[in-house]
């Protein structure tokens, strides 16, 4: 097993958390109700905290500072799935995306806790309890919006139709990921996908939603991004890039 395959995987995990956290932070001050504004901002902060843990591990392998990775990388060098970079959309869209991601994490983390790499196991153990709460909160919301009013149901179904094929990208293995699976560093994404589908299909159906038939991810490479990532990074990096890298604050 080369360190390179592991390093790429860690970066993918970190970038997914960062970009999703950033997207969700866009709801701060705009969520439909005060309580949920705070709850969703908490969730966004948690994801940023998880990104920090994975970037710190990336730094141990590559000596690259997290601040550099986050604020001075262009879109082409980001390794997140397109799923997390899509604009926040309406409340249903953001809530459903977070739910689909939380379910994925709640299935992946118990496996990562058993990773043969001690640092990965340690980080996963730290993240896991928080993710259990995320899933509880977002699955409750999905049920209430899916079974709520005609409007909330319509918006949830639209969100699901749009998000489904993007969500499947979370389970596309990276090019050398098989090495990591064989070495029991990472769980097999195909196994995670089967468990994920069985859980989300059951919950979405119970929430009155129809799961799209496609099983083909809309994107398969993490080097390809939508134009939305460029716009997101332009905003997120604006202040940092206003100064030369490494300026002391």
């Amino acid at each position, binding site marked *: 097993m080369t360190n390179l395959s592991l390093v790429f995987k860690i970066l993918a995990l970190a970038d997914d958390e960062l970009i999703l956290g950033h997207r969700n932070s866009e709801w701060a001050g705009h969520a439909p*109700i005060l309580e*949920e504004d705070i709850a969703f901002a908490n969730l966004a902060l948690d994801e940023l905290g998880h990104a920090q843990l994975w970037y710190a591990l990336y730094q141990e392998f590559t000596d690259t500072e997290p601040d550099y990775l986050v604020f001075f990388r262009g879109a082409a060098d980001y390794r997140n799935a397109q799923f997390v970079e899509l604009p926040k959309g309406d409340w249903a869209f953001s809530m459903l995306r977070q739910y689909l991601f939380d379910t994925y994490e709640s299935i992946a983390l118990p496996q990562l806790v058993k990773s043969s790499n001690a640092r990965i196991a340690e980080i996963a153990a730290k993240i896991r*309890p*928080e993710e259990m709460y995320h899933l509880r909160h977002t699955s*409750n919301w999905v049920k209430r919006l899916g079974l709520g009013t005609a409007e909330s149901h319509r918006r949830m179904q639209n969100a699901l139709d749009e998000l489904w094929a993007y969500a499947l990208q979370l389970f596309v293995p990276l090019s050398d990921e098989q090495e990591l699976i064989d070495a029991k560093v990472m769980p097999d994404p195909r196994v995670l996908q089967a468990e994920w589908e069985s859980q989300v299909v059951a919950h979405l159906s119970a929430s009155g939603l129809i799961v799209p038939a496609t099983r083909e991810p809309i994107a398969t490479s993490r080097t390809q991004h939508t134009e939305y990532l460029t716009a997101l990074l332009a905003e997120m990096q604006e202040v940092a890039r206003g100064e030369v890298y490494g300026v002391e604050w």
Partner: protein
Amino acid sequence: MDSEWNRYEVFEKERVDLPHRNAGSVHAPDAEMALENARDLFVRRPNCLSLWVIPEHAIFAKTAQELQDDSWRDQEVPHNADSEIYLVFQKQGQIARETYVAHVGQVEASSPQAAMRAALETFAAKNVFVWWVVPERLVLKSEAQDAPSMFAPAHAKKYRMHAYYPVEPIMRELKSAQGMLESDG
């Protein structure tokens, strides 16, 4: 259509030797979401051992002043109603000082009025200026197994007061380097 959600009073237990105390209120579509909103609003900081949420409509409340008028005692429902557990809460102390509506115990009664009467007898104390009784079946409590995901993560987080960030001295330094700082003299 009334789009306002119901209000729930939030009770938080911060230490084993402290009772559940009123932390504030949240709005939510139902009790389960109220419990989650309570966690997100009030438990980002340690320490929380347990949370309760109580729908506003379930609270039968009397101030010490209101209790001087006895007419509420006549509003009792017929005695054939089933008796059940009511939780009793008090606000004690001096009004001017920081104080909480806190859980003091429970009584068994067949109506809010009967519960209030029982509470007044059982938990009589000086300086009580607010009494609440609430049927326990309408109180949603966090469960012991919720603690690792609901309360424990707060312990791992750093909370910094604004003074942690030395923004002002740095700004003064930058401005003075650029000759922008006006003389304080």
